[in-house]
């Protein structure tokens, strides 16, 4: 079949015989094809992810106000972040705030998303209507979301407090009272769980109906169906949402910035109860012009997220057996 070409090549270039035979082996062809498929990714990765990350890493060892060339300071930034409470008073604080947020937000959004996905999946009609409605918050820009919820949470005229007043419960200063700030933010996060809901829906659709049919025949009830069929088969989806949920929540920024950012004169809300880690990084990068410190802080967060992700990869089941 390929004799003509290979004979020709054999005559003209003896080395090409080995190359050609190497190429012809299907396993090596697999390799080449694999690399070809990810070639765009490699190029993109090197240009827009790898280089900036390495650059940021190096900047973490400098003092840089972005207008003059960076000045090498070695581990100074890291030392000061960890130990200098005057220069960086909110470093540990912002970390605890973020942790509080993550611990509340991830399980809440995931479980509510799952519940809603299950509910939607179980009905025949009006699926589209419900999906659209529940996805609405996701497609709204952060500025609008902040404006909406500022109204809902308004201590005098907000929707929530009006409802409480009608129920003769005392009004709450949702966004102004430090203790209530994180829960209020988690509620907003849950409100915009449309993406997770969709992902769970897609995952649910991937479970072959035969399993449920078999279960019905065997007389298995709803809860057991969930426990033995749905939940295990959703493992890949749950795993994915868990990983991305943690990664995303640790880096929560947009909504916090619009609600409690420097633009409104606030530095992370009442008593800095909403000063999340990335907001703190942002302030140092673009308000105090300490880009070097901001890069160092980013790397600390990076390490933490990597560790948590590795733990998740090891101990959370990725797929069902």
């Amino acid at each position, binding site marked *: 079949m390929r004799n003509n070409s290979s004979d020709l090549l054999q005559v003209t270039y003896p080395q090409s015989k080995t190359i050609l035979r190497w190429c012809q082996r299907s396993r090596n062809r697999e390799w080449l094809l694999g690399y070809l498929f990810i070639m765009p990714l490699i190029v993109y990765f090197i240009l827009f992810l790898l280089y900036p990350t390495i650059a940021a890493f190096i900047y973490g060892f400098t003092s840089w106000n972005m207008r003059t060339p960076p000045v090498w300071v070695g581990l100074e930034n890291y030392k000061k972040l960890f130990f200098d409470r005057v220069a960086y*008073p909110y470093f540990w604080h912002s970390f605890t705030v973020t942790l509080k947020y993550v611990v509340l937000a991830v399980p809440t959004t995931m479980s509510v998303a799952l519940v809603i996905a299950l509910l939607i999946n179980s009905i025949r009609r009006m699926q589209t209507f419900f999906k659209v409605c529940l996805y609405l918050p996701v497609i709204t820009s952060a500025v609008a979301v902040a404006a909406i919820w500022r109204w809902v949470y308004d201590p005098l005229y907000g929707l929530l407090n009006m409802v409480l007043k009608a129920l003769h419960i005392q009004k709450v200063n949702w966004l102004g009272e430090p203790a209530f700030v994180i829960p209020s933010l988690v509620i907003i996060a849950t409100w915009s769980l449309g993406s997770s809901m969709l992902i769970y829906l897609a995952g649910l659709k991937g479970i072959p109906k035969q399993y449920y049919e078999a279960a019905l025949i065997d007389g298995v009830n709803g809860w057991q169906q969930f426990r033995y069929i749905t939940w295990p088969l959703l493992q890949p989806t749950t795993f994915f949402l868990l990983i991305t949920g943690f990664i995303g929540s640790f880096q929560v920024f947009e909504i916090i910035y619009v609600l409690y950012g420097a*633009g*409104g004169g606030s530095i992370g809300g*009442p008593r800095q109860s909403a000063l999340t880690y990335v907001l703190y990084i942002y302030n140092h990068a673009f308000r105090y*012009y*300490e880009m070097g410190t901001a890069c160092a802080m980013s790397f600390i967060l990076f390490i933490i997220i990597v560790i948590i992700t590795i733990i998740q990869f090891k101990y959370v089941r990725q797929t069902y057996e």
Partner: protein
Amino acid sequence: MKKILLWSLVLVICISMTATLSLAGCKKAAEEAAPAEEVEEVSAEEEEEAPVPELEGEISFWVYEPIPEGLAVLDTLKAKFEQQYPGTTIDILPIPKGDFNPKLNTAIAAGDVPDASYLDQPLVALFVRDGIIDPVPDGLINEADFYPGALNTNRVNDELYGLPLSQTTIALYYNTDLVPTPPETWDEMIEIAKNVYDPDKEIAAFNVPQGDGWGAWLFPAFVATAGGTMLDESSREVTFAEAPAVDALSLWVELLKYSPIEISTAQNAFQTGHVAMMISGPWELGGLRAEWPELNWDVALIPKKVQWGSNIGGDNAVVYKDAKNKDLAWAWIEFLTEDENNLELSTTVMGNFPINLALSTGDWLNGDSQLQTFMEQMKYAQARPTVTEWLKINDEIISRAIGDALAGTKTPEKSLIDAADDARQILGW
């Protein structure tokens, strides 16, 4: 079906490529120049300048987004200038105000610098120290034409590095139904606060600033009315832990008793009549007049303890060292500080006040008692410290001190003393 999808995708990509290439092409979009109505005024000031060399070319000028009606006025000014100097083009780039500094600094860091731009007052000193802006050319302006306070926010080491475009200050807004006569002293203010506070009707006395960046920005105004300062830069001393500042913070703690934050932090609490007094700037006037006609309100000077005082704020314009057409840039900036132009710019476009002394009295103030009150307040306004670390100290140290005092976790004296210690450490004084 899939084939159709695929080909439509390819088609979309092709169309978009051609479209973007043509959009990005070097077609100079026609400037939407509003007809320049004013006849070229040959005012006395213009003739005083050194003869301007042949101006031509293009500069980029970065601005904050002007208040709504302002964009059109800015274009009118631009058209007027371009008519005066044919062959020139001013490329104005409006940027959302909150994102202006991040964008500017990112651009500088990545190697792209505009020719000229607005610059927030405190940043001028930082930019000078970093060596990226040019001093004002000799003979460009007559310094006596300007308000010294505003002009001096551009002065570093006795040299001017920019020109002021607008200035602003803050004063006391009060609800005339709840507060018939405004307080003139601190004691009067506390008295009024006690009387006005009504928890049943949900009325708070005063929008007490919180322990955040804005509160820390307002704080020096009250310190000034007690006769104090925040820093003494010439002698490198931190002065915000001394008696005047402690008194100012104590005043806020006292006022807080009659101003629950559940009421004062509601949106538009003053406008809806739930807060009797608040501190704010002239930018509120437009909104109050247009949107809240049923509210009865007025403006007064910030109550004094020892003397009148307030903060000065505002925007300057600078030209960058790496600018390509510096003559044109300076000519444009100077143009913006001239009488008529500056009036338009600072009031309509920026919502503040002009920096040109010639405009301190004029028709535009006639009959507007509230504007006149602000102009009066401007006389006593003091500038912020220009040390590099001021913003960080503002955000993390002073605002924390205010927060601690207001929350009652520390006395005003203790929180300011601790804050001063921290500040000294950061400044190295």
